[in-house]
């Protein structure tokens, strides 16, 4: 009966973009990813291998995140997509458009209104809530990869919980530079077991991973791995007693909203190299400015 039953080769009824499935992926692929997600949630921080598919966007441009989003999105979801914290960066626009076209989902730029947020390189400043899922795009899911290039070796290290090489590397940083010389993709320990790459978010965002009410899913398309941090899970940034983990701070405030607590992007505004600082999270910045000025149309 192979090939006849709906779960073997079913195609979406009523896909929006003619000729393609709802949210692009076929049902068999979605089921495979969904089963992987269950295991990822059950073993927090462990990288589940999955049969990553080619997406119509290049590897490295968020195909892992897109496959997870495609597997979880439903008709009632409201999707937000950010890149560098901004809704209006070109790749964020492109991915948001892709799902609006293939799944017909509602989209938003407002963090609190979104049910699914796909992100590259940031966690929103606005605290997330329990009805939200944050989907991270991950380039290199293996936190040990730059210390040990072989997958066979790193898998053994994870199996044994042997993270000595990572601690040695961080300690060498301290000995050489006086600091841990990692400012983004800063490794964390999840639920006291797996060392995990939180994706290339600045370490400023690491504390937001800890005991978050929202489910966090991570997808690496090219490397064909997915992993998860369930809500209310302990996530600890690696550090040493004499060199505790600390996040970036700026002396400046956001030039638009005046925020002193958010992650700031540095802009060079003239040929003399003068600098201004603005929030990387465009929605957060907009919400803070709203009482004072009307919201600008995104994408203009």
């Amino acid at each position, binding site marked *: 009966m192979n090939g006849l039953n709906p779960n073997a080769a079913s195609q979406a009824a009523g896909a929006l973009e003619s000729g393609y499935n709802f949210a692009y992926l076929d*049902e068999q692929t979605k089921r495979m990813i969904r089963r992987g997600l*269950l*295991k990822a*949630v059950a073993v927090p921080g462990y990288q589940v291998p999955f049969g990553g598919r080619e997406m119509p966007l290049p590897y490295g441009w968020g195909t892992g995140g897109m496959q997870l989003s495609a597997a979880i999105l439903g008709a009632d979801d409201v999707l937000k997509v950010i890149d560098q914290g901004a809704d209006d960066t070109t790749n964020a626009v492109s991915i948001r458009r892709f799902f609006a076209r293939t799944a017909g989902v509602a989209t938003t730029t407002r963090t609190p209104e979104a049910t699914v947020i796909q992100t590259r390189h940031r966690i929103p400043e606005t605290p997330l809530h329990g009805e939200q899922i944050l989907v991270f795009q991950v380039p290199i899911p293996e936190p040990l990869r730059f210390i040990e290039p072989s997958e066979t070796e790193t898998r053994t290290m994870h199996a044994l919980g042997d993270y000595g090489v990572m601690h040695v590397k961080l300690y060498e940083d301290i000995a050489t530079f006086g600091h841990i010389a990692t400012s983004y993709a800063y490794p964390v320990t999840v639920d006291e077991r797996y060392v995990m790459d939180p994706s290339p978010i600045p370490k400023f965002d690491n504390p937001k991973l800890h005991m978050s009410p929202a489910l966090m899913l991570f997808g690496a398309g090219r490397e064909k791995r997915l992993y998860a941090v369930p809500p209310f*899970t302990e996530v600890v940034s690696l550090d040493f007693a004499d060199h505790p983990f600390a996040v970036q701070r700026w002396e400046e405030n956001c030039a638009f909203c005046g925020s002193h607590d958010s992650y700031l992007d540095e802009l060079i505004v003239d040929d003399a190299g003068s600098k201004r600082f603005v929030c990387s999270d465009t929605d957060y910045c907009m919400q803070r400015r709203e009482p004072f000025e009307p919201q600008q149309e995104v994408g203009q």
Partner: protein
Amino acid sequence: MTVEHVSHWLQPAFNDPVLDAQVSFRAALKALAEPGLVQGMDRALALDGLQPATYALCLAFLDADTPLWLAPRFDTAAIRANLAFHCGCPIVAEREMALFALLDEPELSDLSAFDNGSERYPDQSCTLLIQLEALDGGSLLRWRGPGIRDVRAVNLPLAAAFWQQRSARSAFPRGLDAFFAAGQQVIGLPRSTRVLFNLEEAA
């Protein structure tokens, strides 16, 4: 079985195979991400001995890539025919081979043969789909771990044997993940959940 015999048993599956599967998956994902919290699972009808939530879990997750082990109670012509037709999942006689297992309460006193994964690939473990008469009424236990802010009190109607078996099969990251289904509801119990008996951590 001939084709005529199979078609005699066939019943409808999801109304909308795409959207109902998605809704059922999201409920299951939430159930596993927040262990012990009851989630609705109402997109399928009952099928023979399978209650709606149990059948919805099958339809959402099973296909040709997922060998399934059936407890004797669920090993009926109607269930076999519908799972074969709607999911196409191979039904296996050996528990060791199963990626999913459909169980009822009496089966829970022996979980020894189900695959609990390996240190290197803890994801390659069997997922238990356990149908119960209800999701409460048992002794009150306290669950802790990922997905639970502090402690969650859960009173699934389970014999002590299940907890002993689960504990025996747990060596994190190895372990068994379970969904408990009753009527149109489901509760998730991932291997990461630590269950406390009388203030004493047991699993």
